[in-house]
């Protein structure tokens, strides 16, 4: 026999034990690596699932807004206009009636028609579908500038931003929310929005002279606040795979909020 003495048997036995223990250790290491990979896959799957879910919720929200906006624009708007026209013709036909009351009603109707139009534009920015992001943002800024609550200026480094309609709408909503927040909570009187593309990123800088929170405060508010505004911004940013950066010092004369959004979808 090849192995004749007990010494060799012990030697061989020890060698086998070494191999067995070595194999066991390698197995444990490989098993752990596999578990980590599976966990990563699971987390990734959950993240993508959450994003799809958020996208579906936001899509249905947008569809609802669109239908309400269209109803306001196509149904309520013409009705109010018809009432206004009726009152005007009545005013022309009956010169002896009380002018001031009718004129006040016509003026109020004028305000109501404008309000309905503005609300319908905010709910469903038709300019976004028809003319693109730049035009829709310009429309929104004009709307704010007309209220004289704040002056907004715009700067585009690219004439046409190449985003798909859904991502465009998401970005538009984020900008809307940030601008309204700056005016409402930050008392900003002057805002400058700059939009540019860098490699595959869309970079939006919002510079305003109001009060703004720091990045840490933003993260704390996201966790602890009941408000929907910031949460909606973050949801939309997650869907766009983008991020937001606030200045670290809230005592600056001008605050900058920076958005970085990939031009292409990540799904």
């Amino acid at each position: 026999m090849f192995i004749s003495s007990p010494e060799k048997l012990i030697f061989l036995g020890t060698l086998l034990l070494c191999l067995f223990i070595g194999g066991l250790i390698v197995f444990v290491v490989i098993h752990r690596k596999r578990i980590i990979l599976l966990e990563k896959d699971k987390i990734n799957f959950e993240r993508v699932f959450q994003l799809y879910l958020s996208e579906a919720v936001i899509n249905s929200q947008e569809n609802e807004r669109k239908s309400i906006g269209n109803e306001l624009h196509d149904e309520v708007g013409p009705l109010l206009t018809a009432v206004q026209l009726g009152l005007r013709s009545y005013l022309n036909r009956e010169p002896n009636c009380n002018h001031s009351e009718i004129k006040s009603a016509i003026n109020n109707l004028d305000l109501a028609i404008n309000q309905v139009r503005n609300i319908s534009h905010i709910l469903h920015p038709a300019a976004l579908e028809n003319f693109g992001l730049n035009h829709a943002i310009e429309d929104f800024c004009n709307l704010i500038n007309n209220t004289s609550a704040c002056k907004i200026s715009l700067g585009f480094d690219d004439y046409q931003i190449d985003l798909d309609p859904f991502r465009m709408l998401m970005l538009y909503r984020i900008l809307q929310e940030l601008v309204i927040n700056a005016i409402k909570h930050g008392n900003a009187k002057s805002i400058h929005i700059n939009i540019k593309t860098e490699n595959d990123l869309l970079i939006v800088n919002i510079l305003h002279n109001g009060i703004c929170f720091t990045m840490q405060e933003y993260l704390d508010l996201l966790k602890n606040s009941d408000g929907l505004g910031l949460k909606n911004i973050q949801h939309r940013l997650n869907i766009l795979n983008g991020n937001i950066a606030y200045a670290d010092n809230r005592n600056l004369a001008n605050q900058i909020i920076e958005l970085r959004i990939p031009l292409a979808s990540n799904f």
Partner: protein
Amino acid sequence: MLILSGVKINNIFLIYLLTGFELIFLIKYFSNLLENVRWIGSWKSLAILFLLLISTFAIKHPQAYINPNPQIIEGLYITFLCLLFFNKELKHPKYTNILIEPSFWFVVGFLFYYGCSLLILLSTNYFFEAEKFIYVWNIHNLLYLIKNIFLIVGLICLSRLQKS
């Protein structure tokens, strides 16, 4: 050793002493490591029995020969605890890289040495008596060296972990 020579006991006693202290130290270490493992309390109680057994061997055994039984008992016991550790790792894995965990390297070192040297320890007296195949102790020393290398890797991981 001076004390031992003073009371006319040879240094084989030191091996028993080392085995006893080693066992106490390793039980302490593994009881922290296997905190949530079932039956660990019973295994700790069993260790006390083993310690008593080792003490008996040390006192009763003739001083002319090495009694390898304490080391074999220690080896079997530690090997079992190491396997319990791996069983725990397989059943309830953490989602971190195992290769940066100091406890992994320590257990690998203990398992490698105590598990692999069992056969050599079992045949200690045979090798001494036969006075041949004496180079088997080189294999034992190599295993001891490997254990220490793994322990050093574990210590490096520990210091890195503390730094981070």
